[in-house]
């Protein structure tokens, strides 16, 4: 009798195990600085949109492909690396008028929630800290691809993110609204399994 009950218990647990999918834990990735683009678009007096970028940034990703909502990302941007292809303007952007890099050399983003909205799309909620001020930000994220990169031979995932922030929310008021308050963010990233 006992043997029968034991065998039945084993069978049931095996059957449940076979039916229920294996729950994967988030996997740690390191964002590849060589394939990280952090760019922004700002409107200049209504005449044109200026594209700028930050040349130095780094981050970590904890990614669970099967349970995306368990994933998390942190990115740190070096504000001194701001680059709009004009030395004097970049110097101005580093001044207390804008990024005030002497006092705030870093800008950080930490995710708080990820919401899957489509097969490869989602919303990334997080907190952006800039000029000592932290505000919530939402980015539209697209999961591009995962696999072994033929270039590096390493397991890689790639994302694109788009969003908009209001710089005056962070205390960056100079020139607004003539130099637009709303700044579009464009982020392209590849992350390599750590």
């Amino acid at each position, binding site marked *: 009798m006992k043997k029968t009950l034991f065998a039945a218990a084993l069978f049931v647990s095996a059957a449940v195990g076979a039916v229920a999918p294996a729950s994967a834990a988030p996997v740690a990735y390191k964002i590849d600085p060589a394939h990280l683009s952090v760019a922004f678009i700002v409107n*200049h007096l209504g005449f044109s949109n200026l594209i700028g970028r930050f040349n130095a940034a780094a981050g970590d990703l904890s990614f669970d492909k099967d349970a995306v909502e368990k994933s998390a990302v942190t990115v740190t941007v070096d504000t001194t690396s701001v680059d709009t292809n*004009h030395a*004097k*303007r970049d*110097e*101005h952007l*580093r*001044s*207390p*008028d804008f990024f*005030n890099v*002497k*006092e*705030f050399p870093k800008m950080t983003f930490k995710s708080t929630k990820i919401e899957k909205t489509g097969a490869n799309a989602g919303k990334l909620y997080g907190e952006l800290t800039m*000029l*000592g*001020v932290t505000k919530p930000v939402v980015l539209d994220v697209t999961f591009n691809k995962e696999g072994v990169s033929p270039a590096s031979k390493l397991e890689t995932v790639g994302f694109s993110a788009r969003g908009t922030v209001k710089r005056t929310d962070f*205390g960056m*008021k*100079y*020139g607004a609204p*003539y*130099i637009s308050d709303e700044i579009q963010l464009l982020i392209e990233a590849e992350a390599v399994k750590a």
Partner: protein
Amino acid sequence: MFDLLHDPFVQSSALPLIISVLAVGILHRLAPGRVLALAGIGVTFLIVFALVVGVPALPPPSSMGKLFWSAAGGLVLGVAADAVGVQGRAASVLVAAWLAAALVWIALPALDSAVAVLTVVILLAVGGVVAFGHPPDRTGGAPAPAASLLALALAVGGTALIGSSASVAQMALALAAAAGGFLLWNWPVERHGWGVSGQVALGIAVLLATVLALFTQTQAAELLLALPALLAGRLRHRLPLPETGFGRAVGSAAVTILAVLPALVAIGAAYLLGGAEASPY
């Protein structure tokens, strides 16, 4: 009209000039004493700062925010001191203490190198000259020290403009224009004496130079060339002018020109050493 108020040139010149003339005039009427009208310069600076940069949060997260609140605190101190009649060495000590505390508070995040520390030491020394060089004397005339203020603020503003810090430039030029508004009230007839509020305004120029020197890439060493502006008042007595109304009016104008000359030299040096290209935006 709205667009005009947001024009940086207007914000740095005509607007503070008009506000200063009105503020000094109102204070002149409300407080008939000789020195309280001086507070009109500081009031003008704070109004233009709030309009152009915005009122900073408390506690201020940045150097510009600390500058605003230091100026506000100094103005309150100056008005209170002038109201109770503090003058002479006591007033100088009061201004020196306020200026040293504000300067160190603003400079703290930037003290990461020997050069930065040396810069702060130099700025503190200049602050000492400002505090003790023109001891508030209610019986003395205000035009000479006000001319020094105009010149120093002009030097900081011009240097900042070349060095790509538009907000520091605008605030400094606004301070210069505010000093100009006060001078208009004292020319050709001197109506006011020099009080603690005026010393505070000179201190604000030093604080602007602090932000410029420590938090931007501007080569602020050229500002030292403007320091002779502080001596312009001492030359007044060497000018061969009669002690008549006409003589005093010419003397005030001459002192202002003598004060502005070193400021122009400083700006010229900044222009030659820093390149002529302003930040286009």
